[in-house]
């Protein structure tokens, strides 16, 4: 009789949590408003969850946002990535209009957005800024279909100066931009204009191969954006800006064992894998040599392109399952420095994996938090990547103009 009870207990409790993850695969026109570019024939490649239930909910959110925006070429004042120079990769959740992006660019990377010239001295070093919760105000953001539940406007703290949307920042600063919205920023209208929120990439280098990746639906629609920058000597870097959900409601929390972020992260990893296979024509090949502890579940892979994945992962601790699995897929990531980036929580991270001819690698000790939040509720993070021919000493000795 006791065996029957124990069997019943195991059967009942065994179906509390699922163990399967949703695969994210190439999508056609399932969310065309997020994949089409204004005034252009270029299309942003779109990846989306393959599970029908996810897609239905994502479509509802997608109908309320405007098109993606790609301005792939920066101002003429920004030159190419100089040979031997290192690249700065920064990630920052700007909290809608809270973060003063213009001041951030001026102080952290030496780009002036006022007079069209860099801040004194040397030209800005090559950089890619990965942004989350960027907002766009535009008449291109459509009125939501009747009955659509729109998320409330993001809470912003008051700050000096005016709010400037991401499109205006890119134009005023002369930077290349890739922006893909995830959701509406409240139901409000402003003289026929509306706001949406999403992820973005800003750079003083040209952007190519822009791809939007819809993450599996958990709490709200999340779309990661990926683009490639090309360095001297043929080395390239794919930069991915992502924003994972905070926490689901009690039902989803209990029924999924709080694996919402893990599901989104693994969907993103799957999509990046598919993209690599699609672009190279071959699957990533196992690397030679032994597999260290972080890749105990997966064999170490050689990837066709170096990739940096960064963003607001909303992780309440640095030991969360999501980060453990992401580190397996990005085994060359720097160690977390123990510094939280949102209040007391280590929400924001930069992860890296080598690829191609393995010439692009993080500079040891260069991964850190930037102290000035510039009025956002998050502090930014930065890492330096050394390109072919660059040296550690060179990159460390000459930081970005004005960098703090």
């Amino acid at each position, binding site marked *: 009789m006791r065996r029957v009870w*124990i069997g019943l207990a195991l059967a009942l*409790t065994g179906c*509390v949590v699922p163990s399967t993850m949703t695969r994210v695969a190439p999508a056609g026109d399932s969310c065309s408003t997020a994949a089409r570019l204004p005034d252009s024939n270029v299309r942003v490649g779109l990846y989306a969850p393959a599970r029908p239930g996810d897609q239905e909910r994502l479509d509802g959110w997608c109908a309320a946002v405007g098109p993606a925006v790609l301005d792939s070429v920066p101002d003429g004042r920004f030159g190419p990535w100089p040979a031997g120079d290192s690249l700065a990769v920064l990630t920052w959740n700007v909290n809608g209009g809270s973060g003063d992006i213009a001041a951030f660019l001026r102080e952290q990377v030496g780009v002036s957005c006022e007079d069209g010239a860099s801040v004194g001295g040397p030209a800005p070093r090559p950089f890619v800024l990965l942004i989350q919760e960027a907002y766009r105000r535009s008449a291109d953001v459509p009125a939501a279909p009747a009955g659509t539940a729109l*998320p409330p406007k993001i809470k912003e703290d008051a700050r000096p100066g005016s709010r400037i949307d991401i499109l205006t920042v890119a134009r005023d600063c002369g930077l290349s931009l890739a922006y893909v919205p995830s959701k509406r920023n409240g139901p409000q209208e402003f003289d026929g204009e509306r706001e949406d929120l999403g992820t973005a990439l800003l750079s003083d280098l040209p952007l190519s191969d822009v791809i939007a990746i819809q993450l599996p639906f958990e709490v*709200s629609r999340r779309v990661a954006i990926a683009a490639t920058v090309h360095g001297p000597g043929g080395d390239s870097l794919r930069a991915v800006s992502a924003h994972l959900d905070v926490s689901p409601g*009690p039902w989803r929390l209990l029924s999924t*064992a*709080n694996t919402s972020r893990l599901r989104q992260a693994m969907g993103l990893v799957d999509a990046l894998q598919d993209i690599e296979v699609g672009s190279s024509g071959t699957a990533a090949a196992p690397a030679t040599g032994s597999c260290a502890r972080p890749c105990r579940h997966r064999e170490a892979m050689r990837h066709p392109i170096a990739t940096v994945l960064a963003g607001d992962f909303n992780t309440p601790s640095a030991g969360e*399952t999501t980060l453990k699995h992401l580190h397996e897929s990005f085994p060359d990531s720097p160690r977390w420095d123990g510094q939280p980036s949102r209040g007391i929580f280590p929400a924001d991270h930069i992860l890296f994996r080598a690829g191609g001819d393995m010439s692009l690698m993080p500079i040891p000790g260069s991964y850190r938090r930037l102290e000035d939040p510039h009025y956002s509720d998050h502090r930014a993070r930065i890492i330096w990547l050394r390109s072919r021919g660059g040296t550690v000493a060179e990159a460390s000795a000459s930081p970005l103009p004005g960098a703090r």
Partner: protein
Amino acid sequence: MSRLLAAVGVLALCATARVEAQGSEHATWNTIGGGALGLYSGAVLGTVGSLIPCGQTYATARCVRLAAAGAGTVGLVSGALLGEGDPGRLGDAAKAGAIGLAAGAALGVALKPMIQGFSWADVASLSIVGSAAGASGTGTAVGFGVGAVTGLILWKTVPSFDLEDAAGLSLAGLAAGGLVTWLVRGIEAQSGGHTSGGATMPLVVNLRF
């Protein structure tokens, strides 16, 4: 949906816990009802208590499932012993579970208009947790309190101990407190060390070695 039906089924089984002991047939139903209530309460508490600690492992889902199964088994055995040995006290536990169910539902209904996307399934989830905690008695509250205080002290004194770890310790304390209560109830019911309100009756315990 199948999980929701399973939960409703377990709750229906729990309803049978309040059966008067009027013969061997009723005693069997008391045992079944007690086992069902213990299984339900233990499994839910095991799930809640393991969410954050298991979220620090590679295999979160498997870890939570294991914790839920283990806690459910403890609850099942303890509840069956309680139902067999002290039906009156089992009835008290069922009543407390019903109060917890109502309190969880009330909290969920209050939160629903305040949180966007808070669904009726979320309301039901709070009811389920409330009933599981209620059925397991004051041990959940004591366990939660001890876990919370310990967690806060560790958070303030140990640099590597995150606030999330403190929250996890609180929930783990809640689950542990509830399970200890079930265990004590089961042991006391079999040893005759405690009786609930109402008529007392001698117990004959058959021990097999």
